[in-house]
């Protein structure tokens, strides 16, 4: 048993993760005819908490409660992986990324998110305004405008050979390339 836990604790190869994430698509379909798509939950939260008579939020969100259970599970899974199954070593990132981040004072690679950026004191600064508030806003606004996120379009949509999902996925990547290469370095320098 302890050997198994040790085995699980190592960082997983991309192919293992890819197969398991891909299997989520048929698992949800076979369990209850559900489409794998996580960003829809952001809409359900709006519909549940603040529908404000907006037509887009006037629907029976309780019918979609399964998805809220799903993300609840994701939070708990994240907790279990971090507390019980974590690898004590730093995240292995490419040396060129490490070198470029160190110019901005990001040298702590011990966590999934850079501790020197994702902390409460940064949150209440100009940098934090961009990394948390503006970034998060773009994720919520953009995914709903696009009708899905990485799970809904890139994984479910492409798996079902939907060309609008391919358009969306290409646009996600183009936005990401521009952002990571031009915008993020600027924001890190703030």
């Amino acid at each position, binding site marked *: 048993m302890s050997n198994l836990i040790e085995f699980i604790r190592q960082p997983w190869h991309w192919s293992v993760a890819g197969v398991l994430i891909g299997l989520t698509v048929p698992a949800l379909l076979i369990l209850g005819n559900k489409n794998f798509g996580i*960003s829809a939950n952001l809409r359900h939260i709006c519909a549940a908490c603040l529908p404000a008579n907006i037509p887009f939020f006037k629907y029976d969100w309780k019918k979609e409660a399964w998805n809220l259970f799903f993300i609840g599970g*994701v939070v708990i899974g994240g907790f279990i992986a971090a507390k019980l*199954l974590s690898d004590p070593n730093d*995240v292995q990132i490419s040396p060129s990324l490490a070198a470029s981040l160190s110019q901005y004072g990001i040298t702590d690679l011990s966590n999934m998110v850079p501790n020197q950026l994702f902390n409460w004191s940064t949150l209440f600064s100009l940098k934090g305004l961009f990394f948390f508030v503006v970034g998060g*806003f773009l994720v919520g606004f953009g995914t709903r405008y696009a009708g899905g996120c*990485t799970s809904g379009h890139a994984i479910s949509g492409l798996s079902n050979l939907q060309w609008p999902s391919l358009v969306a996925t290409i646009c996600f990547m183009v936005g990401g390339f521009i952002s990571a290469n031009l915008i993020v370095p600027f924001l890190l320098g703030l």
Partner: protein
Amino acid sequence: MVKDTNTKEPIQDTDYEVRSLHTMCVNESEHHEGFVGNLKYAVIGLLFGIVFVKSEVVSWFRIQEMFRLQSFHMYGVIGTAVVVGAISIFLIKKFKIKTIKGEAIEFQDKTFNKGQIIGGLLFGIGWAITGACPGPLFAQLGTGALAVIATIISAVAGTWVYGYLRDRLPH
């Protein structure tokens, strides 16, 4: 207050992540599953959350590497997931596999609108900044990165503002 003249056609809801909105919905499960029934989705989510963290898909660093073309890791994860998903859907269609409750599994085609381009670009920009798409945001929270709550609240606000402005945005 000027009344809406209502000359514009209502925007078709092409959001296929929200099934209950489709008036012609054919494959929404007839079964109301209730709390206990929904727990099975929580179990899938839990396993999925572990995979997300153990494969470092939730890592801000991995997202930067992906978009700077410094590592194959994320391309490998997403590419493998799409291939496995596509084979699964192919098999479900070919063998007409049913749900565990015996319902037929059917698929809806996605219609194109400009939102996939404009919204897609905006989401891509946000994805690289936050280092997370919506799934990993929740997993990051689980790992104890509590400041991510601010990102999630902002994402909910972004979705709300989209809903509010929807009729005025190009689609």
